[in-house]
């Protein structure tokens, strides 16, 4: 009686609910959370000893709940729990206990995981009801068609009348009349209300609740029920990850949650991706901390998305503070999948797709080029008889295939679970085809074993091998895309004028040929380094091979109830070998190669992490306290070796170092990087009746890379929450759940530190000087000044949020406001030239503030006809500003053609673009009207000002899901607004380089012309370093339109399959943007060069086909 006053209330009691579905257990297992949660008392090994005489059933059930992990669910109106019984059991299983207990009580039971449902035999129910009423029978199934036992069915106007479905999902209920209304409810499923309407058979399909209040989320060193989380954490689920066509996990996050920006550095296969959580906090590397199964890792590019169970993004300081170091830019926690107890599963996923180039960029064609150049004062006379009009962007691109396979085996018994999986990915480049190929193999073993009642051990191991053929990009001089943008259309792809070829041969040089022996076209007009990009696609030999092992092993001791002590050792071992060589070629005096040199870079990254932590949970009445203390030790070493020699002959098979007699060119190099970190941390979480939550954490970090006096940093955080909807006074009918939360905390970062800032050194690296006989002497210098004041970069973040669920959790909504102040940003700033130093030590240079609002909302429902639909939207605003710069100076960042183009300056967004601002085109002269910013009457370099910044004001994402019977449809879009891109691929020093078409179509053509672009001019800084080449790069991208079909079970079960789903998908297919460069998502490897487009490999559009089979 006391426990469940009304059956109705079952699924509203969030904190008293248990995990009905395997899904929930799975989540727990996946996250390795079992290290903290004793969650596996299954019926077989729970032994009960109890003697009770003449106690009520309710009392005995209570005792059993306290002494075991089982929870009883029953309708007090149906089950007479006040009847007096006796019980005498000694070390017997729960079944035996229950059999004895209910023998005479007329109660049926069913054990589902840790929960026991009590029902009465249907005839007993009926017996309590008048016989002349209307009888309804039927079956309740889930969306897969599987029967659901234990579903509560209650008559709307007579809550005393109800029943529970049997093991086979069937039910019988007798209601007062054929007009009655039935309520079907079950934890984890949406409630349904059905008009009987005279029907005697009503079969119901219950739809899983979109948002499970008992879902747990992974937090640092543990898990928490979502309902008591007080921090700002976003989750991305496995289902979302599985749909991604790109083999990189990071892409899966893009647009999924508020406040997270995913910035591809390039669209090339295998290229890097940067994640920015809540803006760019640091001036250098602002990557979040990646934790995979508890192991800190340098990147997540080696994970197959299919292996991931869930990703949690810790956005606020309170959640990240437990990671102290490097938590300043947010934390991405990844849990990989593991096996399920008692269920063996084989899963195969396959994807095949074709990628094509997707870009807005359009360059001038031959006729436009000629007119433009001539108006700019150049002479463009194509060679007699030639009328080439090459579209270079077209020439460098092709339809490129990609495929992905993932095969996994998982299962387990009561003591152990395992998952084995392997994947293969092969992706050619839409630019470069197989010469830009990325191939990756991954292999994973996750296991977990309960060795003893008090000891659990497990491991997570991922091995990946990848090979990437890289094409040069993100460079204004020699990249492929850049050359395609700059090359004149009069130049042919394949040379037809053999006299040009002969001239090169006569000079003793080597014109470049393709594999068919044809000579590549030579520049007709463009001079300098820019050369036929098609030639360099085929002839670039630059291969990265990466082997990466990420492994962790743990043991958890559970000496007493509630106490878990875990020790976990992890290893991240990465080998990257890069081999590159170039054939001999000659295009121009500035673009030639006369010798075959092979270079190898070998990098070994070795990171060991040892963590020990203990957590203790105690519940006393309504007080629930969890404490955690721990320590962590990290050791990182990175030796690098460099080898260079001449090749005996041209060809990849000669690109090794042993075979040439020419040894003068041999070079070796090598460095070693090593550092250590030690951390101690603690956390106290408290909640009262699941209504009031309070949490505090403290972490103390020491890092070897910091000056010894400032080596240690302490990072506190507090957070609190209030679940208003649990209060008695809460009476808003449609709002099921309302929580307000607030947090404050500090985090550190040392990502951008150059070690030993406080120590003065003499170095001899690269310092040599020849004497008159050309013999070299070694030299030495102090190349960097010292900075003993250098210390931790520290971010402080305040977060306020509200979570809300309404209309039986069909509608969810959450809003967060945050303000994140990053102080003492670490950067190696350029020092004043007059100090005469060669290298710049790390310094704490200033403060950056990021603030914004984040909204996430979702609605999910289904019609009685079986159509399920869902919408989720997320939106975040971002305001980024540098609020303080040390010494009130400015710091220059990225450099374009020798000029500092991005700046770190007080009152501006971090690394904003600076150049000349124009105010239209002078109608009389066609020159840009440059704004005299300092009002001194003339235009000088000091008039350079803010032109834009790469930071979006708004980030958003939306998904739409439809499911009807076996069909499912998914559309996902993502976008940014308010970000700018600076077109920086131009070569003002090469006057005849091609320009985008709008330079021609929008140009000023004569006096009186009110044009948006100036008269043709190839050189002016007032054009190429001005806002005329800075464009709004807001975009909306339809990331995915996917249509799937799940084969009917009746068909596939005949061939022994469990589930088969096939789908077709258009990925990244439609992009809406005004930006006229290659890709509005212009990224860069360099952190201070975001939004500076030097001619990037754009994101490609893909047509995908996929198949997913479960055995």
């Amino acid at each position: 009686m006391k426990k469940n006053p009304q059956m109705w209330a079952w699924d509203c009691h969030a904190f008293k609910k248990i995990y009905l579905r395997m899904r929930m257990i799975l989540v727990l297992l996946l996250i390795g959370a079992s290290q903290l949660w004793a969650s596996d008392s299954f019926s077989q090994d729970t032994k009960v000893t109890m003697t009770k005489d003449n106690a009520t059933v309710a009392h005995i059930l209570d005792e059993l709940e306290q002494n075991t992990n089982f929870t009883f669910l029953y309708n007090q109106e149906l089950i007479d729990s006040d009847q007096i019984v006796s019980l005498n059991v000694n070390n017997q299983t729960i079944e035996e206990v229950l059999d004895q207990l209910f023998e005479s009580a007329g109660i049926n039971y069913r054990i589902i995981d840790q929960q026991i449902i009590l029902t009465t035999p249907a005839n007993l129910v009926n017996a309590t009801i008048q016989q002349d009423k209307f009888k309804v029978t039927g079956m309740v199934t889930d969306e897969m068609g599987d029967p659901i036992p234990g579903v509560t069915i209650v008559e709307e106007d007579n809550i005393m009348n109800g029943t529970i479905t049997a093991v086979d999902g069937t039910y019988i209920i007798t209601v007062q009349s054929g007009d009655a209304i039935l309520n079907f409810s079950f934890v984890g499923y949406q409630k349904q209300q059905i008009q009987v309407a005279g029907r005697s058979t009503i079969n119901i399909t219950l739809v899983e609740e979109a948002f499970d209040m008992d879902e747990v989320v992974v937090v640092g060193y543990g898990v928490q029920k979502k309902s008591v989380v007080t921090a700002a954490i976003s989750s991305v689920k496995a289902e979302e990850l599985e749909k991604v066509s790109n083999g990189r996990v990071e892409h899966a996050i893009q647009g999924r949650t508020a406040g997270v920006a995913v910035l591809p550095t390039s669209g090339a296969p295998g290229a890097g991706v940067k994640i920015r959580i809540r803006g760019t906090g640091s001036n250098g590397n602002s990557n979040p901390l990646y934790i995979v199964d508890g192991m800190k890792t340098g990147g997540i590019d080696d994970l197959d998305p299919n292996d991931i169970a869930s990703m949690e993004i810790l956005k606020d300081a309170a959640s990240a503070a437990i990671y102290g170091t490097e938590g300043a830019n947010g934390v991405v926690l990844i849990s990989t999948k593991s096996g399920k107890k008692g269920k063996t599963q084989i899963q195969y996923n396959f994807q095949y797709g074709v990628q094509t180039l997707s870009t807005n960029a359009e360059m001038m064609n031959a006729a436009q080029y000629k007119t433009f150049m001539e108006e700019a004062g150049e002479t463009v006379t194509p060679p007699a008889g030639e009328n080439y009009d090459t579209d270079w962007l077209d020439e460098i691109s092709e339809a490129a295939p990609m495929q992905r396979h993932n095969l996994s085996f998982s299962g387990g018994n009561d003591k152990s679970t395992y998952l084995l999986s392997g994947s293969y990915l092969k992706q050619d480049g839409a630019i470069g085809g197989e010469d830009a190929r990325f191939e990756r193999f991954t292999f994973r073993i996750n296991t977990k074993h309960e060795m003893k009642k008090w000891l659990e051990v497990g491991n997570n191991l991922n091995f990946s091998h990848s090979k990437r053929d890289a094409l040069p990009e993100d460079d204004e001089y020699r990249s492929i895309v850049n050359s395609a943008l700059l090359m004149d259309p009069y130049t042919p792809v394949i040379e037809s004028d053999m006299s040009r070829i002969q001239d090169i041969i006569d000079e003793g040089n080597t014109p470049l040929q393709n594999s068919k022996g044809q000579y590549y076209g030579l520049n007709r007009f463009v001079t300098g380094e820019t050369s036929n990009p098609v030639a360099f696609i085929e002839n670039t030999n630059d291969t990265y091979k990466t082997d990466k092992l990420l492994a962790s092993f743990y043991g958890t001791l559970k000496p007493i109830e509630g106490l878990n002590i875990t020790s976990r050792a992890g290893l991240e071992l990465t080998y990257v070998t890069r081999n590159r060589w170039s054939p001999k070629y000659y295009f121009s005096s500035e673009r030639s190669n006369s010798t075959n040199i092979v270079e190898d870079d070998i990098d070994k990254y070795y990171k060991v992490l040892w963590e020990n932590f203990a957590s203790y949970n105690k519940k006393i009445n309504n007080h629930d306290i969890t404490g955690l203390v721990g320590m962590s030790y990290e050791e990182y070493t990175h030796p690098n070796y460099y080898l260079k020699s001449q090749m005996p002959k041209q060809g990849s098979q000669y690109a090794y170092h042993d075979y040439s007699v020419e040894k003068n060119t041999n070079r070796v190099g090598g460095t070693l990087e090593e550092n250590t970190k030690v951390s101690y941390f603690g956390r106290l979480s408290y909640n009262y009746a699941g209504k009031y939550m309070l949490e505090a954490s403290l972490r103390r970090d020491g890092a070897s890379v910091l000056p010894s006096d400032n080596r240690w940093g302490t990072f506190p955080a507090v957070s609190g929450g209030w679940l208003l909807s649990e209060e008695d006074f809460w009476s808003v009918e449609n709002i099921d759940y309302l929580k307000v939360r607030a947090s404050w905390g500090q985090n550190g970062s040392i990502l951008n530190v150059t070690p030993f800032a406080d120590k003065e050194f003499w170095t001899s690296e690269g310092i040599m000087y020849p004497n008159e006989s050309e013999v070299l002497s070694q030299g030495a210098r102090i190349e960097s000044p010292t900075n003993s004041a250098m210390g931790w970069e520290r971010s402080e973040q305040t977060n306020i949020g509200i979570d809300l669920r309404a209309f039986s959790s069909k509608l969810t909504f959450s809003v967060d406001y945050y303000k994140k102040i990053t102080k003492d940003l670490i950067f190696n700033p350029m020092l004043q030239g007059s100090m005469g130093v060669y290298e710049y030590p790390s310094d704490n240079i200033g403060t950056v503030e990021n603030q914004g609002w984040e909204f996430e909302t979702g609605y999910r429902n289904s019609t009685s006809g079986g159509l399920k639909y869902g919408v989720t939207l997320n939106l975040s605003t971002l305001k980024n500003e540098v609020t303080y710069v040390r010494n009130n100076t400015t710091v220059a960042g990225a450099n374009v053609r020798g000029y500092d183009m991005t700046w770190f300056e007080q009152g501006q967004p971090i690394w904003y673009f600076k150049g000349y601002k124009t105010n239209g085109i002078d109608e009389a002269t066609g020159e840009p009207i440059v704004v005299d910013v300092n009002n001194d009457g003339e235009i000088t370099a000091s008039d350079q000002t803010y032109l834009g910044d790469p930071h979006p004001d708004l980030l958003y994402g939306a998904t739409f899901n439809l499911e009807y019977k076996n069909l499912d449809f998914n559309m996902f879009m993502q976008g940014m607004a308010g970000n700018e891109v600076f077109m920086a691929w131009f070569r003002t020093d090469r006057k005849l380089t091609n320009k985008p078409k709008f330079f021609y179509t929008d140009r000023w053509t004569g006096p009186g012309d009110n044009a948006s672009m100036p008269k043709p001019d190839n050189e002016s800084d007032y054009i190429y370093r001005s806002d005329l080449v800075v464009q709004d790069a807001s975009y909306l991208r339809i990331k995915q339109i996917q249509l799937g079909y799940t084969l009917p079970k009746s068909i596939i079960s005949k061939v022994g399959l469990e589930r088969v789903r096939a789908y077709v998908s258009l990925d990244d297919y439609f992009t809406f943007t005004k930006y006229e460069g290659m890709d509005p998502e212009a990224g860069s490897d360099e952190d201070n060069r975001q939004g500076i487009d030097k001619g990037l490999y754009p994101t490609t559009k893909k047509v995908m086909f996929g198949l997913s089979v479960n055995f």
Partner: protein
Amino acid sequence: MKKIAYKYISLLLVIFLVACSDDVLEKDPIGRFASEDYLTTEEEAELAIIGVYDYLSVGYNNYGDWSSIFFAKVLPGDDVNTGGGSSADQPKLQQLNNFTLEYDNPAITDVWHSFYRIVNSSNNIINKISEDVSIKDHIIAEAKFFRAYAYFELVTMWGDVPYYTELPAGQLTVELPRVSKSDIYGHIESDLQDAIDELPLKSDLPLEEKYRISKGAAQALLGKVHLYQQEYTLAHQAFNQVITSDEYSLTPDYGTIWLKEERAGVETLFEVMYTSQNSHDWGGPWDGTAESNFLVQLMGPRGDDSFNNLDVIGYTNGWGFNVPTKKFGDLLNAEAGAERAITSVISEADFETAGGEVNNPGGNNNWDAYEGYIRLKYCTRPSETGPPVTEVNWSTPFKLIRYADVLLMAAEAYNKDNQDGSAIPLIKEVRERAGFDDHSAWENLTGDNLFEFIVNERSLELAFEGHRFGDLVRWGKAATELSTRGFEVNKHELFPIPKREIDLNPGISIEDQNPGYN
């Protein structure tokens, strides 16, 4: 049993929780020498001074992206056009030549930095060398020479500049205001005097180390410092010490001055050395730290069908920077004497007669820098480079002070000090090497007339070597000779203080900028 086992394990873990000591956070730097115990041996002192020489070669080669000191000195002159692939090639260099540079010009920014790196590295030696090092005085003397040299270039190019001999330790921003030129000159002179006192004669330098700074180099620089301050008596006194030392003479064959065999040769007082033996390929390094002279490749006659068959005159193609003006081409051909003319420039006609081909406009270039002459001084002679990629292994040194320059500077100082009699023989020496034996037309010139003759002779002798602009400015002739090229009086005599310096040095604000540049 179980209970005991896990209790022990738990205990061990708890012990470990607190057992990690601070020691694990102490790491040793890789491959670097702690300053506390450096500069205590002879060998280390030698390494340290070579570090300064290296900065000189890096600064002259290019500091990054072709911002060479050499270009900063040679391009503002009327003897050259910038050239390159077109008039848009390397805007920062074009701007030096046509006087459109602004204070964010990257070349100026880098050259400024190059000189201060020499200052700072010299300071470090002077301040930190241990008393116990036996060659301490010699090393300090070399360092003082370099410090004086760098400050001298700084004041001539920028006027008042920050001056320091030591930077506060542990500080990343130092207030370094502009110091008056005359004060700096005082420090330069005192450094040079100290250097002169300690430095050995060139003949006393060991073989294979003749490239090192000698007493004569310091004396010559001191003379030049006085000359630039119009302290003519002091100037010729200093030069006279060089001349009477008999340590230097003119290379008999003018055309070989820039070649390998004359490295640290008889005419050399101060020179930047490079090597062809370090086997660079196209892989670099491209940041100016190469030990070969990348600049020579830039300064070869433009390839890409602009100048063909250069081998007929013994050269090969380069990238076309530093192109002779017609003014100087004509002047040299008319007045320099055959030896100097044919080894300094070749006219289009002579080139074509020899079998060369000029294609301009045409080829791949619309080349407006070309005025009918090809420069041969500091030009791309294949014998001066090495394998495997000849374009990037040039060994050609930059002659910063050579004896002919000293003779002409001395002559100028005597002339200005009304001692024309002492000037005449020095000029004769220079002209005789150039093949002129008959001095009757000029040997009786005096005063301003003789001065004008010296002015002209410097053009003939030192064209394209980076002296012209500095000379014109100190002579007050810049306006007349350069105004058609964009030179503005009271502005372009000096370069602007780089924007980066104004941004970062709290001691200099935009108001302190040189006139005409903000």
